[in-house]
């Protein structure tokens, strides 16, 4: 195990805000592990704990078999961290940044060049440009190079693709795939559900807790109900009416369609037909679809919400 997290808790403002709530997970060697969740789910706090920047309130965590509290100095030599916010020196050039971070790790750009070669070649034409003047995608590539230059065992990438265009995002994930082949473990967080499929395993996070950990395929498969997509000209009226219908379990807007599940999947086809007949809306179409990670996420989120509600009562 390259990363082991056991029952970590972290609160801010003297317990007022719970950022990380009893989180446990493990990352294998050469695995891409994704923390998926919206802003405020506690992803960054977990990263900061694992990179020894933040002390957990309770629980323990190990990185490369070293304790994050006791052996923090050794861990810092072995991990690469790319914070969510661009944190390189904007007034130094691309090359100067890279060389600076190489030297503070007591290595040289040349020594580990093979590791970053693919990525660095893309930004090499701009190597005399100041980092602050790079485009968003270029900045991310440079930050990745700087995090890799000392050949880390584990790479921590906190929302590396936030604010980056679609093409650059795709390229970025391809690079991660290649790094995985170098046997580097990667812990990555993202708020984009579509990126979850690119990870080996993911943890779905909400309000500081992990709701589910599994491979993306298994998470989708374990979706317990049939999922239907509904489309109509007047989507808002349809949403109102479906949410009022007692056979409908859940219904929410998803892109330009509505995703819905029924309380019972028995005889679901007839239910669909009945609804289409009753609603009398223009262009109404309902069809069965395969769920995505996002459907699973929303479903888990709702289940958690109802659970806490019942707990409260």
């Amino acid at each position, binding site marked *: 195990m390259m990363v082991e997290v056991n029952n970590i808790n972290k609160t801010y403002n003297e317990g007022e805000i719970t950022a990380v709530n009893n989180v446990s997970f493990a990352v294998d060697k050469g695995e891409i592990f994704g923390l998926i969740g919206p802003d405020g789910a506690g992803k960054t706090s977990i990263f900061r704990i694992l990179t020894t920047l933040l002390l957990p309130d309770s629980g323990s965590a190990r990185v490369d078999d070293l304790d994050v509290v006791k052996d923090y100095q050794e861990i*810092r*030599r072995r991990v690469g961290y790319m914070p969510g916010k661009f944190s390189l020196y*904007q007034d*130094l050039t691309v090359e100067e940044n890279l060389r*600076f971070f190489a030297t*503070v790790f007591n290595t040289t750009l040349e020594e580990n060049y093979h590791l970053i070669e693919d990525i660095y070649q893309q930004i090499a034409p701009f190597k005399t440009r100041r980092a602050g003047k790079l485009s968003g995608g270029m900045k991310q590539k440079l930050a990745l190079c700087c995090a890799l230059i000392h050949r880390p065992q584990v790479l921590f990438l906190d929302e590396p693709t936030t604010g980056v265009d679609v093409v650059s995002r795709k390229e970025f994930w391809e690079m991660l795939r290649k790094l995985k082949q170098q046997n580097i473990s990667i812990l990555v967080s993202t708020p984009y559900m579509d990126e979850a499929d690119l990870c080996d395993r993911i943890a779905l996070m909400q309000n500081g807790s992990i709701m589910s950990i599994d491979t993306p395929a298994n998470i989708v498969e374990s979706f317990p109900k049939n999922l239907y997509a509904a489309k109509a000209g007047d989507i808002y009226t349809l949403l109102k009416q479906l949410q009022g219908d007692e056979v409908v379990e859940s219904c929410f807007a998803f892109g330009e369609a509505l995703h819905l599940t029924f309380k019972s999947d028995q005889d679901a086809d007839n239910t669909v037909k009945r609804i289409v007949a009753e609603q009398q809306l223009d262009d109404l179409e309902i069809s069965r679809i395969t769920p995505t990670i996002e459907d699973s996420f929303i479903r888990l989120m709702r289940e958690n919400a109802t659970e806490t509600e019942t707990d409260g009562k």
Partner: protein
Amino acid sequence: MKVLLFILQKEFRQIFRDRIILAMMTFVPIVQLSILPFAANFDIKNINLAYLDHDRSPYSEKLMHKIASSGYFELVGYPFSYREGLNQIERGEADLILEIPAGFERNLIREGKQKVNIAVDAINGTKSALGGGYLTSVLADFNANLVMNIQSPVGAAGTRVARIEIAGMSWFNPREEYKYYMVPGILVLLLTLIGGFMSALNIVREKEIGTIEQINVTPIKKWQFILGKLVPFWIVGIIVFTIGLTVQYLVYGIFPQGSLFTLYLFAGIYLIALLGFGLLISTVSNSQLQAMFVAFFFVMIFILMSGFFTSIDSMPGWARQMSYLTPVTHFIHVVRLIVLKGSGLEHVLKELGYLIVFAIVLNGLAIWNYRKTS
């Protein structure tokens, strides 16, 4: 050690790349030293005087010429009444009215005495006090040179009045020129700005931009990071000090009377104390704006209480105590002593002790606080 070198290399790169900072560091000393001593001048000149003459006699005219030729006064009006003169003061045209009563000459000759009236606009306290004083001494001089006071009646030996004349001599600044007092002070001010502000802002900037996050996950140790920040500004401070000394010599012809070694020794220790102060501020601030305000608050107090503008000896007791608690006070004092008086190291050991204590306390506090916050 090698890591520290790389950090220093990086810091210098960043400093030299920031054109505005670079310009500030080289031009500020030159500009401040060339302009300020002329502008911030406590010698009062050009006092506007309204000369209200009810007598219009040869004597009163003689007095008027004497005042006009003293160099301090500008005769701006010859009002016909006191009320008219007061109007000029109200409009800000005149600072002083000298009222010569009717029968001025007659009374002087016949009675041997005559009173005149001086009215002063006291809004600008310094100007009015000094202006009144100057005018009084011009009058005293006029009085002493009056014909009847010089030519005492022949043969009346007993009537000769004994007089003590005071001949003054100003040591270390023979012509009492204000610039000799100001220039060394401004030099200190420059070091204070570089040491206090730049170091505070620089570390906070790493916090604000977030680069400190990236640094913190590297094997760089805290002392390496801090030293990497302080050393460049210490060097920059010494360079600025040297530029300042050069300007001081080229523009004002002031060359330190004392040894340059002592001067640089003090500058070096003073900078360490100030860098500690900057570091302390950077540990309590999260943004450059905050750091700027906190630094400004303290530097303002330091400078106003330091004896840069006003004499510490004339401050009330509590203010004097406060003044001794700021490093600027001691450094300004020492620089003036070394530059103007030529004091040697043995004369300023006490101040050296003060500055060393400041350096230790400020840096100690900063490091203690830095550990606590992170």
